[in-house]
């Protein structure tokens, strides 16, 4: 495809085609027809390409929190110390990704456009279940690459604006590489350190968590994951690199500031110092 002439990047016939063909409200389907070479794809590379590692999510009173460590690994090497793996996919939803980092970030970018595109064309947002189903379809489309070692495993969470009770409106969905979609209760974790993070969440998570409580819980579970999984990075106080923590509530999505995380991390470290066996 020549970008100058077609592909809709200003070409006359491109726009005319889009104007006269009804099409769907899905940006991914449109992209597949108009510029298929822009779809996320990779041709294998296995362990040599950077991989993102641990993502955790937990519900709390008023919404849901998601956190990810900052490490990307390529084989036995640390490829990046400050990668970002948790994103807001729209005003009320969060997406965190484990797996092949480059491909995963492309999929997140496409997914963000997909949700916004639908909203602009239809004049209304998809329901939370609709958004999760849409993501499952995109992950299923990536199955071929997954079998070549470029698996992308997202964790999806959001505030369900249609929920009867705003306090319990936080939702979490996990996915498998074949596009299976599973609603999770309370909390969930994906990635190489997820076994340890989930173990920690099992002991730390409570039904009555508030905003501060859930931030402490997700950061501490990532700390435990980094403790036992070499591919998960712990908080790096010397460089000022903290996990990414994001919240989805009735007010929308927000990222927890590093200053606040610094306080939380130092409190966890002080706590652990007093219990060296933990």
């Amino acid at each position, binding site marked *: 495809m020549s*970008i100058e002439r077609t592909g*809709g990047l200003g070409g*006359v016939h491109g*726009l*005319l085609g889009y*104007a006269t063909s009804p099409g769907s409200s899905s940006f991914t389907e449109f*992209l597949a027809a108009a510029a298929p070479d822009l779809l996320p794809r990779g041709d294998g590379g296995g362990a040599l390409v950077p991989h993102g590692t641990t993502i955790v999510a937990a519900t709390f009173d008023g919404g849901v929190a998601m956190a990810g460590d900052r490490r990307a690994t390529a084989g036995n090497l640390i490829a990046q110390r400050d990668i970002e793996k948790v994103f807001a996919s729209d005003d009320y939803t969060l997406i965190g990704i484990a797996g092949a980092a480059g491909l995963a970030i492309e999929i997140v970018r496409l997914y963000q*456009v997909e949700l916004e595109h639908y909203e602009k*064309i239809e004049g209304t947002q998809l329901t939370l279940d609709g958004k999760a189903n849409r993501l499952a379809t995109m992950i299923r489309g990536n199955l071929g690459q997954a079998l070549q070692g470029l698996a992308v495993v997202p964790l999806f969470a959001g505030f369900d604006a249609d929920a009867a009770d705003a306090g319990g409106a936080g939702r979490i969905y996990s996915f498998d590489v074949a596009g299976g979609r599973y609603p999770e209760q309370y909390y969930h974790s994906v990635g190489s350190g997820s076994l340890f993070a989930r173990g920690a969440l099992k002991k730390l998570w409570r039904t009555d968590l508030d905003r501060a409580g859930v931030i402490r819980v997700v950061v501490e579970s990532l700390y435990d994951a980094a403790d036992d999984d070499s591919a998960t990075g712990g908080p790096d106080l010397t460089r000022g690199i903290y996990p990414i923590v994001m919240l989805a509530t009735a007010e929308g999505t927000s990222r927890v500031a590093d200053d606040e995380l610094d306080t939380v991390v130092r409190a966890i470290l002080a706590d652990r110092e007093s219990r060296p066996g933990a």
Partner: protein
Amino acid sequence: MSMPFYASAEQIMRDRSEFARKGIARGRGVVVVTYADGVLFVAENASSALHKVSEIYDRIAFAGVGKYNEYENLRVAGIRLADLRGYSYDRRDVTARALANAYAQTLGTIFTEQQKPYEVEICVAEVGEGPEDDQLYRLSYDGTIVDEPNYLVMGGQVDALTTEVRRTFTPGLQLREALGVAVAALGSVGGTDGQPRSLPASQIEVAVLDRTRVKRRFKRIAGPALTELLPPQHGEPAAEPAPADTPPHDRENGEKPPSQN
């Protein structure tokens, strides 16, 4: 053997223009004005579901008058083009200028190559970092593109509307004042015996591109928020709420559609 029918190119173009202009003139107007914090769109439209004004991208919005299905097609095409451009390059690389050019070429192609021209007039607006960076483009049915500095008016009775806006508009108005200018202008036409009409919140569609917002600058203003911003009612209330679409060609303006029962 029948003689081939001949019509001069001039005649064909004139007929098509007249047809498109007539179609557009049968609908109600849209007024787009710049104000201190961005660009304000006011459309006379009683439908809260079928919009005349819409978001295209972070800093870009669209307004259309004429045949609903035609400007809706253009709106969707614009969103597709903008999202594709933003996805391929970067969000900041999506500009109203490029979009307006694409629209102009599309409308021009349709006008010359298709049996029936689009009976639409559209506006593409972009809000900049400061008032001097705001851009308004007017695209006509034949692909004519005009870059308007402060305000633009489209739809039925456009001459009277433009005169009214030109008389009352000054640059740098606050939102409330700019809305007053636009609503008064829309109400100044179409009343019985030249009396101004009063347009309540339920009969107009209002949206802004507000440069003080982050990322997506487009916002609709409706319901109580709109009623609060509107000037106190004056003149006779508008009798006929304006639909989003223009009436069919075989029906004169104001003639009622056949009854459903």
